[in-house]
């Protein structure tokens, strides 16, 4: 072991020297080939030089598509293969998208996910972080447990949820092989529910999606909140204790304001993230986002991103891509409005 450590140290020493020599040689190379002027560039120019590879890729794969989809949303009869289009329309595509019943349903679904799951995750995450900070024995063990969902694959968690909430009209009638959720319900004398399969209702399926969203987002929020809480000086709590503040009061008056920058950051990122929900619906329901309920038709659980993808799927037809672009721009506008509102509220409420 000692021998190994020594070898490792030698290796690191040599590696560091090699890196140093090669950097010296690079400089020599530059100077020999009359490229020495690069080393005398002003700082901002050098910075752009270093950023160029990333900026190029971002420009091709992010900035151009954003700009382009903005343009496409104003075209009529756009052909994605030839790039030809019949003409321009000002808000025609937007009007089509906004009047579409499925889009209204998608906005409703997304709004429910955003406004229910985000507050629940933040509150639950905060409480768990406070509890984790308070435990003394097995502290890191508990922390590891609560961080596990963060390193677990989204679809894997989705599969586990699918098993927990399994059960359809047939298996409920004949209670064999029910999922954990239904087993717990029967244990307390309730009737098993078809959560997401045939026989499900809108709200039963939505409940599972919400539970999944909360669980899936919890770990990261706990990490951020815990880091924030651990950064608070213990003396504030001692001072509050001497000032006669109860536990709950020092939580609301000291902990929450002092980690308000973290809460604010989490709030903004998770509202944006929830507006873009797609994979949780795929993981819980299916790739269609629809639960077919026989003769009555189907339950629509598509989110806005789902709706956009559906259009992209049918984009072989001229003009359909413009609908997808319009929907994407609408989603962008919604997110922008909510973020601006939050930033305005944050200016007054967040203590840095």
């Amino acid at each position, binding site marked *: 072991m000692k021998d190994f450590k020594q070898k490792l140290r030698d290796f690191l020493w040599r590696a560091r020297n090699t890196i140093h020599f090669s950097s010296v040689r690079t400089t020599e190379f530059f100077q020999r080939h009359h490229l020495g002027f690069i080393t005398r560039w002003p700082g901002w120019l050098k910075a752009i030089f270093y950023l160029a590879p990333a900026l190029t890729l971002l420009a091709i794969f992010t900035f151009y598509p954003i700009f382009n989809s903005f343009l496409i949303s104003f075209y009529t009869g756009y052909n994605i293969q030839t790039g030809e289009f019949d003409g321009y329309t000002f808000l025609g595509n937007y009007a089509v998208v906004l009047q579409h019943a499925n889009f209204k349903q998608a906005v409703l679904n997304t709004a429910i996910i955003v406004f229910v799951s985000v507050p629940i995750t933040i509150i639950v995450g905060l409480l768990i972080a406070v509890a984790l900070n308070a435990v003394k024995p097995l502290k890191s063990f508990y922390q590891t447990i609560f961080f596990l969902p963060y390193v677990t694959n989204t679809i894997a968690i989705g599969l586990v949820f699918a098993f927990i909430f399994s059960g359809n009209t047939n298996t409920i009638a004949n209670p064999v092989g029910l999922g954990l959720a239904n087993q717990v319900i029967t244990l307390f004398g309730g009737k098993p529910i078809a959560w997401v399969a045939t026989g499900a209702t809108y709200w039963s399926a939505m409940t599972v999606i919400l539970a999944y969203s909360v669980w899936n987002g919890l770990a990261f929020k706990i990490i951020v909140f815990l880091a924030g809480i651990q950064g608070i*000086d213990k*003396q*504030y709590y*001692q*001072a*509050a*204790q*001497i*000032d*006669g*503040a*109860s536990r709950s*009061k020092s939580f609301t*008056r*000291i902990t929450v*304001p*002092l980690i*308000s920058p973290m809460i604010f950051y989490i709030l903004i990122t998770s509202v944006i993230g929830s507006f873009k929900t797609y994979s949780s619906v795929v993981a819980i329901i299916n790739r269609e986002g629809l639960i077919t309920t026989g003769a009555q038709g189907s339950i629509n659980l598509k989110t806005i991103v789902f709706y956009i993808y559906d259009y992209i799927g049918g984009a072989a037809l001229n003009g359909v891509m413009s609908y997808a672009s319009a929907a994407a721009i609408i989603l962008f506008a919604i997110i922008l409005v909510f973020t601006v509102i939050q930033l305005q509220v944050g200016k007054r409420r967040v*203590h840095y």
Partner: protein
Amino acid sequence: MEIRLENLTKVFTDKNGRETRAVDDLTITIPSGKLVGLLGPSGCGKSTTLFMIAGLFKPSGGKIYFGNDDVTRLAPEKRGIGLVFQNYALYPHMTVRQNIMFPLENLNIGRAEATTLVEDMAELVGIGDQLDKKPSQLSGGQQQRVAIARALVKKPRVLLLDEPLSNLDARLRLQTREEIKRIQRETGITTIFVTHDQEEAMSISDKMVVLDFGVQQQMAIPQEMYTKPDNLFVAKFLGNPPINILEGKIENGKIIIGDNVVIGAKDVKDGIYDLGIRPEDFKFDINGFKVDTNDIDHTGRDTMIRFPMGDVIVRALVDSDSVYGKNSIKLSVKKDKIHIFEKETGHVVL
């Protein structure tokens, strides 16, 4: 409110099971309405003692009394204390007004009454015009006052200050020192403060307690502690420049240093002792022992002379006039200013 600590002990145990006795069998009585300084070097247990009085630390043994109430097991908020932390611990997200108001929010006081209390208190400590600022917008001295106001606003029985001046610059320190003394006089509240700065402790406290390794060394009024230290530690700890400690012997009531230098007389049993002489207790004397003046520092009014005496180098602080331009002078020690300590225990011999 008189505070009594009886056999107070605090033992900290670290992860490896090693024990540290931060406070060891401390028994002191702090008189009512006085400003008492707990003084000692770093790690002597003075802050631990303060936190035990505050209730933030649970004592390992012993009792704490406020008047006749045993508060040893009482939670901090029920003890009726105000505590000013070393770094003030002002809530950074609240304004000064909210900071001072915070203790009142927990007390079932009407809003109007609380507001007047806060304003009165801010007036008392002299920050009446800063109430709507955040702590980060205030200077160190103003933050200190806010912390004192927050501690005092709920009318505590005892005010505790943890190193109240250590975060201030020299000029502010002097000003705040006087301010604390004034506030204490005006409110008449029993106040305990902790410090490692002897000058600070001597200048503001009515009574001083010196601690070392969690053990009380001496409790007295400041000047008395300086002139009559109980033991070697107190003698060494107080005074700047520090006291000279040298080995000497007593023969037939004469105090002798080295082979034959007689520096005084004291009716004590013959033997070897540690002698303590404060630098300012040397005086110019035509009948004294001769001292070379080649190692001297002029500091204006006084001059510091360093010279060998017995086995050690001794510092003496004498009048500049008597040294100026001379190669050697004769010195003696002022009468009854030699402190004699037992060699083994360090206790003073009277």
